[in-house]
């Protein structure tokens, strides 16, 4: 039985960096991995969450406190916080906060609702050879819904790409990969122990799914470059070796950034890489050059 809704934490229109042409990117909420550097922490949990701007940003009007029917909100020196056991995500606080300081990350959408939203820019996709990119969170984690959505979009002749961490049931993954026009496939670490340490999951299904993706559709490998984690010569060499036999279209390197740090605060969670510095331009370039020397695939920054 297909679940009728999926939990979506953002739909962004006019995206120019998530594939060809002008695209709409849909962010599915929930991910089986917990990468230490994740810049979208609100994408991880499979349930809705309240994101609340910290004290200082709040005008102290207390409208949200009195509005909450569950009494889930409280005010302290750190600002407003929500008791996750009490909050039922009714959305009243978000609606009432005049200052836009509270946001409910994760709203249920039906296939029809998402399709309608996506089709608003249909002509822009057509003229620019763009389309839709399904991202996350992890898109394959809400597989039934995603399959139904892709099927629907394909009926509408919309180009569909996905961005995936690759950690998925291989059979499910193969079904999805076989339906889409391109897969952006994350490869983060190749050493199994390190992979588990930094992402919380095994690398094995990921590598299997990478082979499947490359076989079934155009596949672009994406590698986040995290200082102190994977910016090593050994990783570059292992990566080149992994990709050598695979028909991968390109490798895109994503330099580390800290733009998501504020969101951890809004969710009341710690950021694991608080002490990790940004890599210099030269360091990023050095990794790119090292990889380029060892692979025949196109390598570029994104």
């Amino acid at each position, binding site marked *: 039985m297909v679940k009728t809704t999926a939990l979506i934490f953002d739909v*962004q*229109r*006019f*995206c*120019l*960096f998530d594939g060809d*042409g*002008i695209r709409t*990117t849909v962010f599915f909420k929930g991910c089986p991995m917990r990468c230490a550097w994740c810049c979208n922490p609100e994408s991880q949990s499979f349930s809705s969450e309240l*994101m609340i701007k910290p004290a200082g940003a709040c*005008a102290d*009007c207390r*409208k949200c406190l009195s509005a909450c029917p569950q009494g889930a909100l409280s005010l302290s020196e750190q600002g407003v916080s929500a008791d996750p056991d009490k909050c039922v995500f009714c959305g009243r606080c978000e*609606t009432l906060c*005049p*200052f*836009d300081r509270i*946001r409910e990350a994760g709203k249920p959408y039906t296939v029809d609702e998402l399709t309608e939203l996506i089709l*608003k*820019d249909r*002509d*822009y996709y*057509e*003229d*620019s*050879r*763009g389309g839709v990119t399904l991202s996350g969170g992890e898109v394959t984690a809400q597989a039934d819904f995603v399959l139904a959505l892709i099927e629907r979009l394909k009926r509408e002749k919309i180009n569909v790409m996905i961005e995936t961490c690759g950690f998925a049931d291989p059979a499910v993954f193969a079904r999805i990969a076989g339906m889409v026009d391109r897969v952006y496939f994350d490869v983060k670490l190749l050493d199994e122990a390190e992979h588990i340490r930094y992402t919380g999951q095994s690398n094995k299904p990921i590598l299997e799914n990478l082979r499947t993706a490359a076989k079934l559709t155009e596949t672009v490998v994406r590698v986040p470059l995290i200082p102190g984690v994977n910016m090593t010569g050994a990783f570059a060499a292992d990566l080149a070796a992994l990709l050598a036999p695979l028909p991968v279209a390109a490798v895109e390197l994503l330099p580390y950034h800290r733009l998501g740090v504020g969101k951890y605060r809004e969710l009341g969670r710690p950021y694991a890489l608080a002490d990790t510095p940004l890599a210099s331009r030269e360091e990023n370039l050095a990794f790119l050059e090292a990889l380029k020397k060892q692979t025949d695939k196109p390598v570029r920054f994104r």
Partner: protein
Amino acid sequence: MMTERIRKLKDFICSFPPEVFADRAEIITESYQRTEGMPSVLRRAVAFREILGKTDIHIGDLERVVGSLCGKARGCPVYPEYDMTFVINEMDGLADRNTDRFLISEETKARLRAIYPYWQDKTIAYRAFLRLSDEQKDAASSLVYILTAMRSGIGHLVIDYRSFLERGILGILEEVKEKRTEEHAAYYDAVEISLRAICAYAERYAALAREKAETEENEERKAELSEIARILHKVPARPAETFAEAVQSFWLVHLALHLEASGHSMSPGRFDQYMLPYFKHDLERGVPVEELEETLHFLWLKFFELNKIRDKVSTIAFGGYPMFQNLIVGGIDEDGNPAENELSYLCLAATRQIALPQPSLSIRWNEEKSSKRFLLAALDTVRIGGGMPAMFNDKTLIANMRTMGYDEKEANDYTIVGCSETTGNGNVEPWLTGGFLNVAKVLELTLFDGYDPVAKRQFPFRTGDAETMTWEAFYAAFKTQLAHYLMLNIKGDDVLDELHGSLCPTPFVSAFIRGCLDAGKTNLEGGAKYNSTTLQMVAVPNVIDSLRAMKKFVYDEKTVSFSELKDALLSNFEGREDLRSLLKNKSPKYGNDDDSVDLIGRDLVDFLYGEVEKYTSPRGGKYRLALYTIASNVLFAKYTGATPDGRKAFDNLADGGVSAGHGRDQLGATALLNSVVKLTPTKVLGSSLLNLRLTPNFLTDENKEKIADLVRTYFKHGGQHIQFNVFDEAVLRDAQIHPEKYPTLMVRVAGFSVLFTTIERALQDDIIRRTCQESGGKKW
């Protein structure tokens, strides 16, 4: 390529502010004193002849294309016949004011003071003031509208440049002779005098060039001066043959338009079409394209040199010395064939290389006939950050031309005047200065039953206490107020229309507007083949957002009472930041592809269209609706109290015309564009103008094509126009602190570009605060 000589000349003319000279004002005064009692049209022609015969002329050392308004580069004449009072009152501050500075010598001031008494009761402004009702004047001083034709000539048209390039002025004189009627003898005499005056003016330049050649020691320059003399002895009197002749002929006539009257937005129009034969002629004879390109660059610098002084208030609404000389390339020709050509590309490159705000470069995009390469070349010019070229959509504008009654060929040949106004090519008096109506102010007057809380003035036109009204009744009351002030504005403009026609007709211009020589009267008296007037609506996006917020909170959800809202607006949200934020953040806003608000906008546009089209001007042309602001939004904002969209009093109103309120379009460019096309572009016949802001790192090689496709789809959906501001906010902020570091930093205001450091602080802030379109829209 920009040559070293062009770079030097550019540096030179950018190195000093423009200067005011008294020649023209003095000459016209003497002439008017001698011609009292003559028909206006003849007085104008005689004065024009005297001006062209006596005003100082000037040939710069580095110039190859010559002709300046005064005896110095960037010199600027005075036009006492429109309004002399502001000149006298403000001339002491001209050199020190924040925006649009002009040098003016004590001698010039004395000469201007001397002629002032003669003009006091004769100017357009004075006569208009006598004829406007108290209510019309009060509405103007409350900034419900601006009557733009009060203190300035009308300008705003595209003459038939082809006529004199091909036939020469002498050819047109033949036509005058053939068409002459006794009934309109004064008119034909006036045209003849004016046309002979331009030929004599060219001879003056030829003589000056010869004189300079005689004493010139550098052989190369000597030969150049002789060539300049040869050309000006030939054109514009006789047909041009070479590109240099055509450019010189074009420039001298274009320049003289600005000596006859003070109107701006005299637009070159489809330059790449009428100049092409001369360009090709030279290419075929082996003239190197580099030489032709340099000639073009000389002309580009000439466009930048033209100037006019405006009163201080006007410099807020029209800051940055804008002359709005719209030059448009591409599109299709009369017969529907692709029109872009090698010269079109050279024009795009000229603006990219010279990087000055004039001419106002535009392109016509035709989805069926234009090449993608052309649009990409246009985006290469956009990338330098000056906001040019503006892009216009053939599909919608040709259809709109047909709606306005132009035949198929004329519609295909449409052109743009000033900022973005759709007009016929050399066949219309489009009177694009009908006025700017502050729609947000009208909403304010509705909320307070005709009371203006800013000026503390009760207007006689009342629609009742809004407190007890339903949503339907309130919306109806707003429309009633809107219809009233629109009428008042139009009636005011009608007064000006008659005055300009009767006091300041333009026989010289009229010789190049089809229809005038047949009708025996000037374009300002209804002689043109087509006539219209446009009325500009300002702050419509703020009003749409305000109405939506009121509907939601006051009428549908009833969570805010009308009196609570009214009190908050009156106190400028003092102590009610919560209510202000609620109105601002929690009600849908225009620009996000949300029908619940966009369709209020559509309904409003439909209503405005119906109202404006009810009126006909004294010249017999219809009034047309337009949605563009120039920078009047900045001026209006200073007189408009808090609005129900959560905007604080005197805070900026929406720029552009159909751009969303600052920072309110949050879902990315496609959502904004989808909202824009809901405002029925086929009813906004005058012009609807959209500013879109991007950061420089956004318009990369990789993304350029995507932006081109964005424009194409928007145009397929019917959008009329789009222009891009591409700048880095940090750079503009730094330029506010260190203006001396950025003498030629160029930005787009509305339909025109300016040098950033020459405009008022409020307008600078307006530009900085516009929504920057980012990939994926704004992040929370």
